């Protein structure tokens, strides 16, 4: 079809007029500050989780309660019971903060949802910390229910359950940072899901089973897992006279891992947002 008038073609494709070059300069809009935007992301994520995640929270809790009941037949009491109860309680944190958050960020990244945040003047840390904080918060009811149920089932004292107020946020920070990093770094969303699942399985096997019967190599792997320190800190407080220095030491490890993994997740977010 040769219907194009000949004079159209040469200059026709020019979108630039050459003479018009009075570029206007505009002031930049305000930057969103870290805390207000962190709070905004946290609130939004919390409401999101309320809508979409309640069934999964039930799953997380029932899974841990089921493990407690199952282990009741194997373990009679003493230090083994302590690690079973502590491990199942922290498992709820691992399920939500590690597994679900890895899936969330994996899907967000794959579907182009990160563009929304990347075109807003919000600090990357606010997006990652807001989401991680919301997911960690959502583990609170499940963890409490599991811990109380476990204590009653195994006849452990409820005296020091308040230590969960430190264990949940610190283990939550470590695990959700890891989950967010998995989700943001995995090249495909399925891989993010697999990584999250593997992390949770590790937390399940290495955290719930009493360590005394494990071979050396497995115990070493257990020491590498950040949730272990949350489990140990919690388990120590069941004793008649807990060694608070060791509890604090374990919690400090959680906090340290949390800072590092959240920093890695923030870096991963920055990397994923601009491709």
């Amino acid at each position, binding site marked *: 079809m040769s219907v194009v008038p000949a004079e159209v073609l040469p200059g*026709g494709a020019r979108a630039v007029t050459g003479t018009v070059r009075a570029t*206007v300069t505009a002031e930049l809009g305000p930057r969103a500050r870290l805390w207000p935007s962190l709070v905004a992301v946290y609130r*939004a994520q919390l409401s999101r989780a309320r809508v979409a995640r309640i069934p999964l929270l039930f799953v997380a809790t029932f899974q841990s309660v089921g493990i407690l009941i199952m282990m009741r037949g194997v373990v009679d009491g003493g230090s083994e019971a302590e690690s079973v109860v502590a491990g199942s309680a922290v498992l709820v944190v691992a399920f939500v903060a590690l597994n679900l958050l890895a899936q969330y960020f994996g899907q967000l990244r794959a579907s182009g949802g990160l563009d929304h945040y990347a075109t807003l003047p919000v600090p990357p840390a606010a997006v990652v910390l807001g989401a991680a904080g919301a997911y960690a918060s959502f583990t609170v009811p499940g963890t409490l229910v599991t811990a109380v149920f476990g204590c009653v089932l195994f006849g452990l004292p409820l005296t020091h359950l308040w230590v969960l107020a430190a264990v949940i946020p610190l283990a939550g920070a470590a695990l959700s940072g890891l989950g967010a990093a998995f989700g943001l770094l995995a090249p495909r969303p399925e891989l993010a899901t697999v990584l999250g699942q593997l992390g949770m399985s590790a937390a399940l096997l290495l955290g719930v089973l009493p360590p005394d019967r494990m071979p050396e190599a497995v115990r070493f792997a257990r020491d590498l897992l950040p949730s272990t320190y949350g489990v140990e800190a919690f388990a120590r407080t069941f004793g008649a006279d807990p060694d608070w220095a060791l509890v604090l030491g374990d919690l400090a490890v959680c906090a340290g891992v949390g800072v590092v993994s959240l920093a890695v997740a923030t870096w991963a977010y920055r990397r994923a947002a601009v491709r």
Partner: protein
Amino acid sequence: MSTRAASAIRHPDEVVCAVRGLTKTYPAVRGRRGTPATPEVRATDGVELDIRRGEIFGLLGPNGAGKSTLVRQMTGLMRPDAGTVEILGHDIVRHPERAARILAYLGQESTALDELTVSLAAETTGRLRGLDVRQARRERDAVLDELGLTPLAGRTLRKLSGGQRRLACFASVLVGERPLLVLDEPTTGMDPVARRAVWSAVDRRRAEQGTTVLLVTHNVIEAETVLDRVAVLDRGRVIACDTPAGLKEQVAGEVRVELVWRERAPLDVPEVAALRERAVESGRRWTLRLAPDEARAVVATVTGGAAFAALDDFTLATPSLEDVYLALGGAARQGLVRA
């Protein structure tokens, strides 16, 4: 649509966004099991654009023409291999993070907002655009009201229809004023009422604040009715840029004839057989672009004699931007829509 009314407030001398030599090449991918190899693709190829203050500037092209890639480079979401993007005096290639403080972007995906209520999506976006709580809530209420979304404010985006969800995302773009709006197919799936709400909201901001709009579309009718100027993209290159009327003048000597056959074309009629090589076939539909007297002859042929028995429907139309795209050598035979 009333966007014409606002063109009086355009500022023809002020360039808001200048793009020079923008190039992005996706590297070749080696084939693996299950995935065939893809050759190197130039998604944008030396693109040059000047967008002026207060205008609605369109990027028109079929899917895969490079529109979204171009927009992602202009919004700082993607680094170009070469070239510059200057928006309101800021170098976006060197400082991509500044784009977020100059423009508001409506992408094609809503996954980040899907599980929020309409109200919270707008408020949160406003807060992340740097507004304080009170400002964000005030602007949220005003925008939801303006777009007729107040009755849906408490509903989750996921539960809305495609058009309503799109409108809710558009609302969040408007919370926290920006001098440049970049909208990637904003009206997809919307009914006429929602479309009108979008364009009148855009018009109001143009009239009151001199807001500039960069619109990505593959909808020819929308392009003709709302755009002040349009750049036609094909395989990563700008093949034409002018007002819609100016572009259509380039193919003014043409008439589009569409023939729809009942079952198949009567190729035993010699005149019809001769037309075949000039027609773009799409199932039972033939599209022909002809000089007016040729078109008259074709209509006479197919409405009489043996060909008429096989004819289901025919239309004669003056050229649209789709014809411009094809006349300028656009490669895709399909991909532009009229809706």
